[in-house]
Structure formats: structure tokens, C-alpha cells
């Protein structure tokens, strides 16, 4: 069969046959195969641990972004109360970017969760095959002549070898995904660090590069809408309850804040 299945089969068979070619003598093949299998099982465990670590890192980043969203919302309200609309807009733009990133992170965490589950399943299957191989190894040693043993070993080793190749492929795909996410995660935290402002009043009216980048990243209509909504909540601008603003002390966050 040509096509997708044929190509995939060829790749895996080549890997398995390379594994088997390493030893000529049946006893050596048995020992080598088994030792190799146990080693690979350790590699799979390590692979799962790496995925878990990557997932935890993303979850921590999620947490810090959630805090940023709350903080930026508060800062936007404070700025607006103080009459600085430009600053409020900047804070909302940053909030918008943080929220978008949060959604992306959520998808990635779910994806890693999925990878972790698949690898755990694969590990269990490989473990079962290795255990079967160990049993078969003893049977082969006890019951077969050297020539016959060679054939049986080859069959058994192919069964395990294929499972190993399969787990290997799954691990590699997991690693590729994790690497992509790592690169993206560090880009986000760089942007986040550069864009952090603990004291919003230190931000001048002048735009820096970060602000320009943020403006491009954030969705302008959403920021406009949120600014308008915040204004009306604070009783500023147009139809909102104008009475509310008189009672609010300037610089105090609104009680209704913290979305």
C-alpha cells in the first residue's frame, strides 16, 4: 500500500530494523533489546515530566496575567476618575492584550494536558509490551534452539520495537509542541515585563515602542467600547448618571471595579 500508510510504515520499520541489526548473536540480541527497552521507558517518564513542567510554567503565567488584568482595570478606572483619558486608554489597551494572551494560554494548557494523557497511555502500553517481552525472553532461552530462537526473538523484538518507535514519535510531537509554546511564552513575558507599569503616573503622554506595539495588538473597537462603558459607569460623558462623579473622590478606585 502506497500513500500515507506506506510512508509511515517504512519509517517505523526502518527504525525497528536498525534496532535489531545491532546484535548478531541471539542471547546478545535479547539482552540488548531488553536493556534498551527499559532505558526507553525511563526516557518516556522523563518526557512526561517535561510536559508537566511546561504546563505548570504556562499555568503560572496565566495566573500572573490574570492579576495584570485586574490591576490594569483598576488603573484604567483610577485614570479616568482623575480625568486622564489617554492613560485610561493605554491601560485598557494593555488589559485587552493580556486578555487575548490569556485565551491563547488556556488553549495551550489544554493541549499540553492532552499530550500528557497520550504519553501516559503510551507509557503504560510500552510497559505492558516490555513485560511481555521479558516473559517471552525466558521462554525462548529455555525452549528453542539457536536458529529457531533467532526467529522468535526477531518477532518479539519487532513487537516491542514498534511500540518504542511509536512512543518515540508521540514524544517528539509533544516536545515540538512544548518548544513552540516556550518560545511564545517567553515572547509574551518579555512584552509583559516591558509593558509593566507599577506607578501609572510615571507614564508620560509620549508613546514609546511598547505602546505602539500594544496598540497594534489590541483590538481598537473593544478598547473604545470598554472605555465608553467605564465612562458611563463613572458617570462621565453623555447619558451616564452625572451625579455619581461628584460623590467619588478623585484617585479612588470605583467600588464597582475589578471586572
Amino acid at each position, binding site marked *: 500500500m502506497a500513500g500515507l*500508510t506506506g510512508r509511515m*510504515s517504512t*519509517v517505523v520499520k526502518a527504525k525497528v530494523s536498525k*534496532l535489531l541489526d545491532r546484535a548478531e548473536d541471539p542471547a546478545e540480541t535479547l539482552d540488548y533489546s531488553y536493556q534498551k527497552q527499559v532505558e526507553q521507558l525511563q526516557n518516556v517518564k522523563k518526557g512526561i515530566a517535561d510536559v508537566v513542567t511546561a504546563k505548570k510554567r504556562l499555568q503560572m503565567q496565566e495566573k500572573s496575567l490574570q492579576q495584570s488584568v485586574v490591576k490594569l482595570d483598576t488603573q484604567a478606572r483610577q485614570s479616568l476618575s482623575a480625568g486622564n483619558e489617554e492613560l485610561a486608554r493605554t491601560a485598557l489597551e494593555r488589559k485587552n492584550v493580556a486578555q487575548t494572551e490569556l485565551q491563547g494560554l488556556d488553549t495551550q494548557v489544554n493541549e499540553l494536558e492532552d499530550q500528557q494523557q497520550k504519553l501516559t497511555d503510551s507509557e503504560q502500553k510500552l510497559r505492558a509490551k516490555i513485560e511481555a517481552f521479558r516473559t517471552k525472553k525466558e521462554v525462548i532461552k529455555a525452549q528453542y534452539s539457536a536458529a529457531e530462537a533467532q526467529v522468535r526473538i526477531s518477532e518479539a523484538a519487532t*513487537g516491542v520495537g514498534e511500540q518504542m518507535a*511509536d512512543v518515540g514519535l508521540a514524544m517528539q510531537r509533544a516536545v515540538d509542541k512544548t518548544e513552540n509554546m516556550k518560545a511564545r511564552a517567553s515572547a509574551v513575558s518579555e512584552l509583559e515585563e516591558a509593558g509593566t507599569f507599577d506607578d501609572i503616573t510615571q507614564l508620560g503622554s509620549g508613546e514609546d515602542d511598547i505602546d505602539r506595539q500594544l496598540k497594534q495588538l489590541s483590538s481598537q473597537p473593544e478598547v473604545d467600547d470598554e472605555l465608553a462603558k467605564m465612562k458611563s459607569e463613572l458617570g462621565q460623558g453623555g447619558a451616564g448618571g452625572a451625579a455619581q462623579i461628584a460623590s467619588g473622590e478623585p484617585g479612588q478606585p470605583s467600588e464597582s471595579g475589578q471586572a
Partner: protein
Amino acid sequence: MIVRISGEDQYRLADEDMPRLNELDNAVVAACDGGDEQAFAESFATLLDYVRSHGTRVGDDELEGSDLILPPADLTLAEAASEFTGEGLIPD
């Protein structure tokens, strides 16, 4: 005939199932060559479902090599289009 779905399980299929499997495989290749993402996803899912529904799962403790190996279910069109060049656990 033993068919493995990579990342899942091995299945035993009857020889009579092979012509249909071949047809389904050809459909995947056609979709892949045409670069049609949706057609690829659909035809590939059909191929895998055929194996799962017509085959009997091979036990985890059975040591059998597969006659055919299918790529993992979450394969993307881009991955299908390129070779599987990864070294995996067993180095090239």
C-alpha cells in the same frame, strides 16, 4: 493483517477489509496532494474510523509487528505533506 494507528493501538483486520482500506488511503493522499485542509481531515478521520470499527484490538501484552502503520489521529495537513523525519526514541 495487523494495522497500527500511531499513538493509539494495533488492530487485527481481515484480508477482505484491505481493498476498502486502500481506497480510503488513496482518498487521504488525494486530499493531501490537493492541499484541501477540510477534505484531508474528513478523509483521514474516515480511514481511522474504518480501522477502529472493523478491526479487533491487539492486546497490550501481545508482541506483534504491524503490517501497516497509520499516522496519529491529530496529524495536520502540513505534517502529512512532509516526511516523518523525526528520530524519535530510536536514533537513525
